[in-house]
């Protein structure tokens, strides 16, 4: 590569890096606009330990009897709708350890209200048109199931308890005493109306159907609400924590400063030991950091957590490692008598196997953690996984190209000195 070409490429690269670096890490008000610019780094999904928020693990009070999955689904459905209704639309509810529910809500201040919301057992009631409760569902309904009637229309089948049968008999009798337009039983969960099926006759049996439902999905929702309300799985709090956003913000800012300083020192070490190759590696590492930030921002399931920061640091360490393995290999090839160019070629080729083998194990460990863990450790696993992949890419492809570019700055005869390459002492 000619010297001129190298200089042009490096200048373009420097401008690109400066631009991308700014795009990634800058943030603040945009001149002449009321909007704030949020750097790419700011877009990365952040776990509640960094962004502030609230989480709780709910454990069933008693062992769940029956189909655990559908019972938990019903419970999630109930919690979900309660949270949505109260504006916590960003809340996530996941099943953990088979029977526990993990509720995470980003950026809440009033954690106590949330706890009361999810802790509230939300009584199921069947009410008359004037809102008088006629039947309390917790004891009345034994089962609710969505299905189709003989005409193929979606229905919800209700199964009453013995008490429920009596209550429904008297309730339907009451309702039938009203005016035609008021002859319905409104189903409420807490203060939320779920459905208002019409009553056309007195129900005095163990089963009944709710008809007039538009879709099977709607039927399923109604059934699950009635069931979860009536099933009433009681939860206790397994773990709960409210985290303040200010603490997380400080952690993140400090980590960015630390990573920056750390990288500068690493650049110095690499250039000290590997000369021109160290310069190439330093540029490649900068590219790596920018790429990495972009990759983290692109994937929606990335959750930057507190241990996740460690995952980032570790993968920067791995990226350096890949470069060191390659350079050591190049030095060795040169020491054994190859020319500088041939050494670079052979070094990369041989080092590739080493880098693959050593990185695959880390990727495997990250995948195991990703699958088996939750919360902040999962966030760690994801950042590590992506970081190692990106680091292999930059070390193998970008460093290689950059060595050619940087090597072009000096004449071929001077390359060995520039790359700190030495023949084996005779």
């Amino acid at each position, binding site marked *: 590569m000619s010297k001129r070409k190298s200089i042009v490429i490096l200048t373009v690269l420097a401008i690109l890096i400066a631009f991308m670096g700014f795009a990634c890490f800058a943030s603040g008000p945009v001149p002449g606009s009321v909007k704030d610019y949020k750097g790419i780094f700011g877009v990365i999904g952040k776990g509640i330990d960094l962004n502030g928020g609230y989480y*709780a693990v*709910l*454990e069933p009070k008693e062992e769940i009897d029956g189909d655990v999955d559908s019972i938990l689904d019903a419970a999630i459905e109930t919690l979900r709708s309660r949270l949505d209704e109260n504006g916590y639309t960003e809340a996530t509810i996941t099943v953990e350890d088979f029977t*526990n529910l993990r509720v995470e809500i980003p950026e809440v201040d009033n954690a*106590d209200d949330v*706890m*009361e919301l999810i*802790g*509230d057992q939300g009584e199921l009631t069947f009410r008359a048109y004037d809102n008088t409760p006629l039947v309390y569902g917790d004891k009345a309904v034994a089962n609710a199931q969505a299905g189709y009637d003989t005409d193929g229309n979606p229905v919800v089948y209700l199964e009453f308890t013995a008490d429920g049968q009596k209550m429904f008999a008297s309730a339907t009798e009451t309702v039938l005493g009203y005016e035609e337009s008021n002859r319905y039983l409104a189903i409420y969960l807490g203060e939320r109306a779920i459905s208002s099926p019409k009553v056309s006759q007195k129900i005095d049996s163990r089963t009944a159907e709710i008809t007039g439902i538009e879709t099977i999905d709607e039927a399923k929702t109604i059934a699950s609400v009635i069931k979860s309300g009536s099933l009433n799985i*009681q939860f*206790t*709090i*397994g*773990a*709960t924590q*409210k*985290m*303040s956003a*200010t*603490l997380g913000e*400080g*952690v993140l800012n*400090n980590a960015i*400063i*630390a990573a920056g*300083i750390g*990288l500068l*020192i*690493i650049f110095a*070490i*690499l250039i000290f*030991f590997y000369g021109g190759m160290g310069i190439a590696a330093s540029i490649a590492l900068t590219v790596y950091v920018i790429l990495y930030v972009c990759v983290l921002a692109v994937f929606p399931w990335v959750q930057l957590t*507190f241990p996740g*920061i*460690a*995952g980032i*640091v*570790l993968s*920067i*360490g*791995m990226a*350096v490692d890949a470069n*060191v*393995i390659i350079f*050591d290999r190049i030095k060795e090839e040169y020491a054994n008598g190859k020319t500088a160019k041939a050494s670079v070629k052979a070094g990369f080729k041989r080092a590739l196997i*080493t880098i693959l*083998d*050593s990185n*695959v*194990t*880390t990727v495997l*460990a990250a995948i*195991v*953690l990703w699958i*088996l*863990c939750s919360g*902040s*450790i999962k966030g760690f696993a994801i950042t*590590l996984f992506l970081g190692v992949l990106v680091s292999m890419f930059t070390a193998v492809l970008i460093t290689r190209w950059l060595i050619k570019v940087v090597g072009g700055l000096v004449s071929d005869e001077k390359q060995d000195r520039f790359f700190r390459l030495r023949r084996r*002492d005779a």
Partner: protein
Amino acid sequence: MLNLNFKDKNLKIVQKFWIFLIVSVVIIVAGLVDTFFVRHMNLGVEFEGGISINVDVGGVSDLSNLEGEVNKWLKGGNDKKDVYDVDGTVQKSGVGLKTLTFRISATKKDASGKTVNMNVLGADDKLEIVHTSEYIKDEEKGLTAHLQEVYGDKAVIDVETQVISESQANATVRKAFIAVAVAVVVILIYIALRFNLLAGVSAIVALLHDVLIMVALTTIFQLPVNMTFIAAIITIVGYSINATIVVFDRIREINALPSNMEKTDVEIANEAIAGTLSRSILTTLTTLVMIIILAIFGSSAIRDFALPIIFGLLAGLYSSVLLSAPLWVKLRKLFRQENKKPVKKMKKIKEDAKA
């Protein structure tokens, strides 16, 4: 210039294996005795269950005074109803982030001064979700009010409570063990496939060595153990296996060269160690730089996390250079495989087939 070239030196590391092993074993045994019989690990609420209270310091500059006030309140000052055992050290955070963390064990003294197991969470009927929530709210309000009385409004920005039940704490420990165990098995299988079973076993022993050293030193220095410690251990599992594999990769390469047919295991291992030593040192050095700076700039939580990683990095360097390859040599001798050269055999078969 600093010379990191060890390739042509005969360091005789394999021959000194037992000395290196004894050094490690002494540290591990001392640490484990401390862990299980003497001082135990400084476990956080995530592992033991209980309550931890974070007090954001706000404008208060005299931290030890504040610490005393909170302690006094928790232990039943100011006619407080519930009296807690405050145990463990109070953690302080670093530059710019002023938070005190108080750990409260799962026991408290009731009004008559009797110690009762709080078990806030879980078995006790009275304290279900809503109750727990009200309970925490009351305690936070009480403490905030008390501190505001003492320091005025500037003092306390926030009191935060973390509650972990015993069953959750157990689940955390169990999950951590399973995760590490599965990761280790997967890595073992991979190395056994890519290298050979004895290399895999040696690598795993080196890995366990690193984890045990981390546990030992964390107990000896009484560092707090919480979820980030698990992350630290896993970080090291991922990292130190790298260094070990680089050594075994070199052994595989040396083994494959026909000119090395006559070399013994000891010679090959020593050559591989010497050939990869500069890389091992440089890589550990750069990662150490990163972690140490993170520790300097980070909050106390980051520091608690950084120290175990530093232990692990050093243990990893030690085991990958001084223990893993020598152990492989000893294992091959033990299983009478020292004369087996699988790669060359394959080559020879191919050559014979050609001829």
